[in-house]
């Protein structure tokens, strides 16, 4: 048996370490450990609840926007507030435009290099790459000329001897299986992805002031002033600029991203059995269509043990099914004690005791729903859509499965989604859905403004005494929730239960491994000194570790040196 440690796990946000026991070329056991801790929640104590979103958004600059949304929703929930319809729709545009950027970046920049051999692409035949790409989609930028240019750029880079971020990658690794032409096509799309993710951000900045870290989401609504008769506000010129950018990005998502994920996934069909892990899924409904948060365009709820007929929907921003069933355990986390508590009841005394696989080994806590570990993310959301027969989900899920079947040469169904590759496919499906929804909510916004409604804000008032509330949001990485206790207008307790904590958490009090840990078990490892396969499965979750570990206390333990194996 060999023990391996990957630290740092790169191409993700934050500082993550993965340990695994390998024998007979397969992972037998795995541990996921968050390596950074900042203490945002403690910093929030005593502050003005209206400011919380500004702080929490800084939990993560990759998942920028998401902590802002969850935060204002938690305060509004505590105060029993609604927000104007325009504000709801502008927030929906904010979240969907951000999601488009985020999913594109995740696939191409943060995870494609686990599957695509950049150096092999340098030796590809541009003609063959072009005809292959054209057989998959009629994207205009799949020409021979383009493939030639990309090949040259790549060769120049390799020949320069300064590979920069491509240095020491897993090039030529036995688990890399794509033909050079597919690799070249993917590298070409990697470079284009950089342009399209930027366009999504440009559209977002028009309503949000800037990105990363939008500045338009406020408690009670949004700060984006609307006035069709003013040059300094959201007017028809700004609205149409958003739409044109969005349409360009939409083309890339439907003709390139979704297609690449399915094609590359199908070419790695041997990987379909790997990476299942925890099959309890949690998603929350989002893209609200009303001022209260009772009607949504994205379905959410729980699915237990992978059984679609166990689907139980979460129905509103106030649904006690969500509010009552979340807890966090610290059995294996670097905090004092061993308990499992509802977020409102949590108190945190950190105690760092070195990496000890049998005891405490991570700064992350272990969230549970009804006492069970849950997998969150686009897969959970797409499965909720499939389980409820949601039309939009079915449209793109069917498209993706059809394409995977065609390229792999075998008919596959939704069951393949419970896997490492399935998580990528689900993310691409969700991205296509979000692109449709961004356009739809743009139309809804314009239609509402056309009615003469320019409202964007309901002022919050903070009564004396205590109020409790939570706000959830289906972020690009999955179900996110913020829990707040307000006392006399000031923050008394603040907890964030974030997607990457659900997924990257250590074992809980019942010794059940978290989704990362469970999904690694059974993964093949061809070369223990180059554990590329670990990256594949971990990256498929789209890890975000700054998000996952955000608690801190002035106390803290003594340093005992971590050994890098």
């Amino acid at each position, binding site marked *: 048996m060999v023990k391996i440690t990957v*630290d*740092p796990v*790169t*191409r993700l*946000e934050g*500082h993550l370490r993965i340990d695994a026991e390998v024998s007979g070329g397969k992972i037998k056991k795995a541990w996921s450990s968050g*390596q*950074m*801790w*900042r*203490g945002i929640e*403690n910093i929030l104590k005593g*502050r003005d609840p209206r*400011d919380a979103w500004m*702080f929490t958004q*800084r*939990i*993560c*600059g*990759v998942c*920028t926007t998401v902590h802002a949304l969850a935060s204002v929703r938690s305060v509004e929930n505590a105060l029993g507030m609604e927000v104007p319809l325009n504000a709801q729709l502008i927030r929906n545009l904010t979240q969907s435009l951000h999601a488009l950027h985020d999913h594109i*970046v995740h696939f191409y920049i943060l995870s494609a*290099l686990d599957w695509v051999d950049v150096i*092999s692409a340098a030796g590809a035949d541009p003609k063959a790459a072009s005809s292959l790409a054209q057989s998959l989609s009629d994207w205009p930028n799949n020409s021979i000329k383009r493939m030639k240019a990309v090949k040259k*750029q790549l060769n120049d880079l*390799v*020949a320069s*001897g*300064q590979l920069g*971020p*491509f*240095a*020491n*990658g897993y*090039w030529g690794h036995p688990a890399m299986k794509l033909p050079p032409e597919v690799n070249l096509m993917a590298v070409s799309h990697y470079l284009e992805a*950089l342009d399209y993710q930027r366009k999504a951000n*440009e559209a977002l*900045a028009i309503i949000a002031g*800037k*990105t*990363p870290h939008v*500045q*338009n989401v*406020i408690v009670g*609504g949004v*700060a984006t*002033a609307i*006035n069709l008769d*003013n040059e*300094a*506000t959201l007017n028809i010129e700004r609205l149409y600029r958003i739409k044109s950018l969005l349409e360009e990005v939409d083309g890339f998502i439907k003709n390139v991203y979704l297609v690449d994920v399915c094609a590359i996934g199908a070419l790695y069909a041997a990987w379909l059995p790997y990476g299942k892990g925890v099959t309890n899924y949690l998603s929350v409904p989002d893209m609200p269509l009303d001022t209260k948060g009772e009607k949504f365009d994205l379905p959410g709820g729980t699915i237990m043990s992978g059984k679609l007929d166990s689907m139980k929907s979460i129905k509103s921003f106030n649904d006690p099914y969500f509010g009552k069933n979340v807890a966090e355990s610290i059995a294996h986390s670097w905090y004092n004690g061993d308990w499992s508590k509802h977020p409102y009841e949590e108190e945190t005394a950190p105690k760092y005791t070195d990496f000890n696989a049998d005891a405490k080994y991570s700064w992350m806590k272990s969230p549970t729903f009804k006492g069970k570990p849950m997998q969150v993310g686009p897969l959970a959301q797409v499965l909720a859509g499939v389980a409820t027969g949601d039309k939009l989900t079915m449209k793109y899920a069917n498209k993706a499965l059809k394409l995977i079947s065609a390229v792999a040469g075998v008919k596959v169904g939704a069951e393949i989604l419970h896997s490492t590759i399935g998580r990528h496919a689900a993310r691409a499906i969700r991205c296509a859905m979000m692109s449709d929804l961004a356009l739809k909510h743009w139309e809804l916004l314009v239609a509402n403004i056309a009615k003469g409604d320019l*409202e964007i804000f309901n002022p919050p008032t903070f009564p004396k005494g205590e109020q409790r509330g939570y706000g959830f949001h289906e972020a690009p990485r999955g179900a996110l929730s913020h829990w707040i206790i307000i006392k006399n207008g000031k923050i008394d307790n603040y907890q964030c239960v974030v997607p990457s904590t659900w997924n990257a958490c250590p074992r809980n009090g019942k010794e059940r491994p978290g989704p990362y840990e469970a999904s690694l078990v059974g993964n093949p490892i061809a070369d223990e000194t180059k554990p590329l396969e670990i990256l594949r499965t971990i990256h498929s979750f789209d890890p975000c570790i*700054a998000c996952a570990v955000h608690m801190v206390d*002035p106390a*803290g333990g*003594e*340093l005992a*040196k*971590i*050994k890098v194996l």
Partner: protein
Amino acid sequence: MALTRREFLKGISLTVAALGLPAEFIPRMVQAAMAKKRPPVIWLHFQECTGCTETLLRASHPDVAKLIFELISLDYHETIMAAAGHQAEKSLHDSVQANKGKYICVVEGGIPTADKGIHCKIAGKTGVQIIKEVANNAAAVIAIGTCAAFGGVQAAKPNPTRVKSAGDLIKGPPVVNIPGCPPNPANFLGFILHYLTFGKLPALDKLGRPKFAYGRLIHDHCERRAHFDDGRYAEEFGGEGHKLGYCLYKLGCKGPQTYANCPTARFNDVGAWPVGIGHGCAGCTEPGFWDNGSFYERLPEIAGLKVDEAGGKATGAVAVAAGVHAVAGVGRKLAKAKGGK
């Protein structure tokens, strides 16, 4: 570090072999190795949110592909590099060894110092150790973002992990601060381009910020300034004044005490910036901006003048009238505004 020609050729052949490239790459690589190198850049992450890296993905001139393939050699950057674990460590180690004293080190994030720095570890090393080994051996250090420049959000009261800025800990190379949460990528790239083109640091202010980006108050170049001067204020989000694009001072704008080029550089190539859509400036390029009062409370003081809570009346009005105009024409108008109408 003089290599004999034989060693040099051997190194190149090994590289070519390690990359699985055909032998015909050897002469091209030899040529490239003799040619001018792209300057090596090592990018370190500590307590941060990666927003500063994300901001680079939004840059357009140059865009990130041009930056990393043509202008610099980004030898280590955890968010985008292909390698991980030992292979990533190797990239870092190789570049530090080969380019000692010559590389640019970018620091993103604050560095926790409580309990010997255990709150942030990478490959088993604390942030403090990595700063010593990597940043101290650079030619110059860029502290990107308010976290690296001034400690940032994790340093907000009560600063639980005792976060320090890069400048607090680095000994040796000059440290240039590019604050902002995150900063405009134009400011980071502007510095890089300046340094590569002119071979020296640009002029800095007393907080170590390049003057080309942090030389003036936001308030000085703000498009809403005329409204401020004439006493036209937004009183509430979505209210009349807000819909007319009036000054956001009463909604908490920190522009009058924040040095940055947001109103001139703008964001994301669409002419956007926070004040432009209707939200006050948060003050994110200034040290300690997290502890300067609520983002929705008006500044109590502008350019040294106390502003009366009730109605935007400057108590220094007499002095202003007497001609302290240079500090604040603002005060005069504010006084005139009486209640801000």
